């Protein structure tokens, strides 16, 4: 079996479409990983179990997630095409159009590949955002971008 995640949940992920880059771990989740962190879990749960940026509503809505990444300098952009000097995040969700619930985030690397943390399982590189589409994450809702931090600035831990 390739990877430790349930294959039926991420049917597009195979040895040909992704590369495993870590061991399974609970220390961080996809939202944190896309924000450049690998030591805590980000999630706006009502009990305060997960970390959430101060001042951002603790709501599982697309708007709240956009505000959370907005605190790091991200703004809405048109698509996930590679742009030199720009760092992009793809935000995924499920549900009826207009009331989708965020489920996952992936970060675009300088190479144009994407990196995702798969829940409690491994983090991976994948060639396209659609590689992690499926029953558990749904589809890409929107793309966010910011100027890619230069070496020495606070940036992704990838």
């Amino acid at each position, binding site marked *: 079996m390739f990877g430790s*995640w349930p294959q039926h949940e991420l049917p597009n992920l195979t040895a040909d479409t992704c590369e495993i880059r870590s061991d399974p771990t609970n220390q961080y989740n996809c939202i944190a990983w896309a924000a450049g962190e690998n030591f*805590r879990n980000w999630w706006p*749960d009502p009990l305060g*179990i997960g970390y*959430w940026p101060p001042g951002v509503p603790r709501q599982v809505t697309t708007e709240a997630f956009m505000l959370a990444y907005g605190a790091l300098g991200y703004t809405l952009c048109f698509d996930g095409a590679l742009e030199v000097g720009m760092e992009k995040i793809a935000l995924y969700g499920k549900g009826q159009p207009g009331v989708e619930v965020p489920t996952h985030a992936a970060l675009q690397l300088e190479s144009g590949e994407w990196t995702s943390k798969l829940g*409690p399982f491994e983090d991976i590189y994948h060639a396209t955002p659609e590689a992690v589409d499926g029953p*558990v994450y749904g589809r890409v809702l929107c793309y966010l971008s910011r100027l890619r931090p230069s070496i020495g600035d606070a940036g992704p831990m990838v």
Partner: protein
Amino acid sequence: MTQQISITQSPSISVIQRAYELLLKESRMTFYNFESAPAMGLQPGARRGQGSRKKAQHIPSIGTCAFLFQTPAHVTLATTPPVNDWMKFKRLVSEWHCERGAMSSITEAVLCPAYQSLIGMGEAAVPFILSQLESEGTNPDQWFWALRAITGADPVEESDRGNYLRMAESWLKWGMTNGYVR
């Protein structure tokens, strides 16, 4: 509290077998109530204290163990053996991992039926959860929602939210302070 033992097809029958062997030897098990005790070689209507002085029953094999559990005289214990709660807890942990899958949402993960059932175990689950946290070492899982829901406590520093390692340390310290962990 009484409990009726029933046949189990669990692959961990040898664990249960050994656990009951230990329980029958322990002086803490003080009350048995048998409807037809001769099948077990014990006197019917045993009162508090008598069971503990009976010779430990040898459970020689899985087949015999199943027969023991299947006797017409079901054994009713006055106290629920902790081993049953532990077995239930471990089963729920395993089921939760399957139900959670690759989801990242803390909210969705705690709504999984197995996690809810675990919370439903109430205070009995607290030492098990803390033991599970301790066993997970540097990779603690998200047991904090369950602990908060059951105990009402919140020993985690605000600055540690989301940092499962630090949160586990806080909860294990809380467990020691409150007598759940030695």
